[in-house]
């Protein structure tokens, strides 16, 4: 009898294991189409860009293998080197701008929404609403609002007697890049607030209670308790902001076109890449140089992201 029992108990276990493994494989099968698309649209273009960057191009025609010549030209030859470093500088300004506006403002807003106030959901909805729009629509709308001739912003400034503040926001090199950074921050603020809110809500309230008993209040509490405990969400947002700032393209393209004017004052590496690779049908060696720039951009973003991740992880362990 005991033997019988053993046998009957073992049988269903085997079936369960088999069923689980079968289901597991089925899940993999369902992932296949997505994987194919991912390889096709993400992995293949990366390899294709790597490959194209090692060849000479004559218009749309691929020529001979030239090794690293496209990369060398990109960094040593005029006007490529000047345009590259100008674009890189604008990317850095973009990142600083986003960190200052999106991260700091979003964190403060998240703190505000997380406190005991009425109408939290309403505030959340209002802040997140721009994210529901397409970035191209946002760019187009702001181009109209900021138009120097009939734009709503300048008209409003003139109407309230602040005419001296009215200016060509997108038409002056002094303001164009900062204006786009502000529009970008407005657009992405809601997402950052949600990430921070999730981080803040994960902090156990008992910790605050204990800190209060120890006499911590106000800024001390914020600096010594809230910020360190919300560090994972700050880390996520900083990395996403970095990637976003170095990939910035759509909004600039929608508001200033591929020339990223005036006189390249809003030109970043991605708009420069677009112009270099696709901007001119007649352009001699554009695709090779454009691919080289894409490779450099890819390496810059991936290595800097890896460094940031390493830095933040270490900081997390220290805490």
């Amino acid at each position: 009898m005991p033997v019988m029992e053993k046998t009957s108990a073992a049988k269903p276990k085997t079936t369960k294991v088999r069923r689980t493994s079968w289901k597991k494989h089925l899940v993999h099968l369902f992932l296949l189409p997505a994987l194919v698309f991912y390889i096709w649209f993400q992995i293949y273009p990366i390899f294709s860009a790597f490959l194209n960057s090692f060849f000479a191009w004559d218009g749309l025609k691929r020529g001979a293998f030239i090794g690293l010549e496209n990369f060398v030209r990109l960094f040593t030859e005029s006007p490529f080197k000047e345009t590259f470093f100008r674009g890189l500088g604008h990317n850095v300004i973009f990142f600083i701008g986003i960190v200052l506006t999106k991260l700091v403002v979003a964190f403060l807003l998240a703190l505000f929404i997380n406190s005991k106030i009425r109408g939290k959901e309403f505030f959340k909805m209002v802040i997140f609403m721009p994210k529901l729009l397409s970035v191209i629509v946002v760019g187009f709308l702001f181009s109209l609002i900021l138009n120097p001739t009939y734009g709503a912003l300048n008209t409003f400034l003139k109407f309230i007697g602040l005419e001296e503040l009215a200016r060509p926001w997108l038409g002056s090199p002094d303001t164009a890049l900062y204006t786009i950074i502000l529009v970008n921050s407005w657009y992405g603020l809601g997402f950052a607030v949600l990430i921070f809110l999730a981080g803040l809500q994960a902090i156990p309230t008992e910790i605050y209670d204990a800190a209060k008993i120890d006499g911590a209040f106000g800024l001390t509490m914020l600096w010594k308790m809230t910020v360190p405990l919300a560090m994972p969400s700050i880390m996520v947002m900083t990395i996403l902001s970095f990637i976003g700032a170095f990939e910035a393209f759509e909004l600039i393209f929608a508001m200033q076109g591929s020339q990223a004017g005036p006189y390249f004052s809003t030109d970043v590496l991605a708009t420069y890449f677009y112009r270099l690779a696709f901007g001119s049908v007649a352009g001699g060696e554009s695709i090779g140089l454009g691919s080289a720039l894409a490779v450099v951009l890819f390496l810059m973003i991936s290595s800097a992201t890896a460094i940031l991740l390493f830095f933040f992880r270490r900081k997390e362990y220290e805490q």
Partner: protein
Amino acid sequence: MRRVGVWLFCAILMLVASACSSSPPSSNTGGQATGSAPTPAVEPAKGEPVELVMYSWRPEDKDAYAKFIAEFEKQHANIKVKFKPFKSTEYNTILSNSLTAGTGVDIVQLRPYSGATSIADAGYLLPIDDVKGVQDIPKPYLDSARGTDQKVYGVPLSINSAVIFYNKKILEDNGVQPPQTWDELIQVSQALKAKGIIPIAQAGKAAYLLSIAHSVIGTSAYGGNDYVEKMLSGEANFNDDAFKESIKRMQELTPFFPPDFIGIDDKDAQALFYTGKAAMYINGSYRLETFEKQSPDLPIDILPGLAKEKGGEAPMINWVDGSYGVVKATKHPEEAKIFMEFLASKEFGQMFSDDLSRLSAIAGVVPKHPLVQKMTQLSEKSMAPFLMLVHFGEGTPTTKTTFEDSLQGMYINKLTVDKVAEDTQASADKWFKPKK
């Protein structure tokens, strides 16, 4: 359950297999297109229409093309043509992507001169020398659509002239005569500005508009065709005082452009002109149709480029505005050539000129519109090429683009006149070989 899983597996495999078997983008094989024989025509089965997809950079001509295509389809019931226009500034990108992908388009509008040559040389187009009517088109116009093998790859569409449009009423009401020389242009502009009117509705957000304006304003400053010949032979270059003078003129016009004109679009500049806020507007003759559509009662007239002295010859700045070519990868080359024959016909040329108020490149077409007639007469009297487009459209970035961008830099006080000339010459030095 297992059977369902097997079926699912098979279905997914089929999906993946079908996705993989569709022809992949051939961006890596651009060179392979060269030299391969044209795809043989696939005759459509009786009653089954063949659809040709046609790309253009002129969304504003959509209605007119609907009419032209309807006329063609009346004569060729088995061929349908789908006109797909794209924004002019994004057209090059869309075109190069479509050509490298090798799918989706049969007939393409080609940028003139080096724009067409580079695509033809890369092997993406079918030669059309043997298409009826093509050889009747004047040779200088066909030159705008040749490959380096001297074969013709496009049917030239129209001749553009860069002109100064002016509002006759504004000038009359303010007691000023249409300017003929540089000095007169400055005097007229000063007089209009003093009365609160924007003298010239110029936009600068898209830099290409600046080189069009430069061709009208600057040609007489550097000496017109004689100087162009000297440049082509290497006797003159962009660093010469004569050419710098033409750039200086553009700088001196700044106070007469709309405030913050570098931040405004061409559409805004057009609106300033057709709403009567600005007295003059400089651009290609193709804007005539836009103005007549937007403001049919606007009293418009045109001026060619400026004369060197009062009563002297004012050159009309001309260029061929693109052509239509057949993509080598088309599945319907025969039908596409039939459509090319239609585009090269006098019938199409006349319709094109009449409906769009433009000068057709087809020989024998007499423009109906009095202003287009005037442009033709002025062109016959004295003509000069749009130097940057016709002769300096190559390089990475092109010398034309470098010049336009540098002009924009000059307007925002980032570059001096000398630096604009220097940058333009540096760009030309990289590729331009003077004719010996």
